[in-house]
């Protein structure tokens, strides 16, 4: 076991972890943050996307110890005081969800983009979400949701 210090969804924690596991396993099995999904397990589907030090990463290819000193955000950290984040609300408003398995990863990729750039072009949205695969629906509603959320975030929400 190794000591791991990190900030998860705004809270500083210090825990003992098995250094041989993946970040996604730590989030799901140790912290019970099961909103982060495991799809392909190879970094190719984007279901396990979290934000690490401001960048979207697929947590199934990140060794847990790389989170040492890192600031990690997961889907569970988005809502504040019982209110959903504008990106979450717009995914609902636009019908950008079917089964929902890819949704947490889609939303975390969107948040990483909009935190850095709240007026993205369509190409920028597509680059940011290109690593998130949805097998139910298309991507049109998802892009619309991100654009609608960007509008709201520009207005200070």
């Amino acid at each position, binding site marked *: 076991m190794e000591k791991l210090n990190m900030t998860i969804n705004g809270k500083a924690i210090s825990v003992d972890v098995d250094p041989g596991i*993946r970040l996604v396993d730590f989030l799901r099995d140790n912290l019970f943050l099961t909103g982060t999904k495991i799809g392909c397990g*190879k970094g190719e589907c*984007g279901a396990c996307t979290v934000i690490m030090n401001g960048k*979207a990463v697929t947590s199934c290819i990140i060794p847990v110890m790389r989170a040492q000193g890192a600031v990690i955000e997961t889907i569970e950290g988005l809502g504040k005081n019982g209110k959903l984040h504008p990106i979450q609300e717009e995914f609902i408003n636009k019908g950008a969800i079917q089964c929902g398995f890819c949704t947490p990863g889609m939303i975390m990729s969107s948040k990483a983009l909009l935190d850095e750039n709240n007026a993205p072009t369509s190409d920028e949205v597509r680059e940011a979400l290109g*690593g998130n*695969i949805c097998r139910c629906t298309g991507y049109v509603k998802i892009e619309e949701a991100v654009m609608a959320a960007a509008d709201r975030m520009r207005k200070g929400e």
Partner: protein
Amino acid sequence: MKYILAKSAAEALEALLAEEGKARIIAGGSDVMVDMEAGKLAPQTLVDITTADDMKGIRIQDDQLIIGAAVTLTEIARSPLIRQYFPSLCKGAGSVGSLQIRNSATLVGNVVTAQPAADAAMAVAPLDPRFVVLSKDGIRELAMGEMYAGFGKSTLNSTAEVVKEIHIPLPADDEKASFVRLELRKSLSLPMLNVAAMAKVTDGFFQWVRITMGPVGVGPTRAFEAEEWLKGKALTPENMAEAGRLALHNAKPRSNPLRGSKKYREHALPILVRRALEGIAKQMGLLHFDN
């Protein structure tokens, strides 16, 4: 398992050597983590180089562009410094996997894993890079052609050697590079073919050309015959198309369920080589259409 966050390249090497073959380097992790999960790798210790300060950053020193081994593909794709000298390297690095993968994966990793379809490795290949390698015997520099031992097999030993950084000679004003790829979709897709080139062009004539192609063999494959033929030739559409045809003499595209049939890929490769050369012509102001 033990996990060591190395603070420097020297510390990473020391940690490897102390474990006598039972430790291995991890950079971005996009291959190592997948191989471990699949049971193909089971190191006792991982030595993480992404925390090594002397392996981070992109800088110019003397007449060299220096890229640390811990630099991610996203950092390369978005680097104004690299864009100024080698826009093709930004394009190649920006073509790998997805944004999430590029936020973690590295250029050196893209070379050392020695996969035949690596876009970043392909884009750097014709730039005459030198890989600075630390081992128990000291420091040595390896050229691109010395990095590959076979399909998915590097000449380097990740349990005893550390690549610290890449040195790339800065181009003269009349030297330009390009990168093109053929794919089924724009993201998360391995290339069916990729080609990179660099050339020195004086008064509309090729002085020298380096062309690399993949995946058509082990690592980026040089189109030596086309390169030799182009020397002293004008940058005309006919010459660039002929070079594309000659490039086939050095390439062995095979049928592959992900990349298309041998026949199709043999048809497409000359076109990609021509486009790579047109990319150079365009940057030299010698071609005024989009290909």
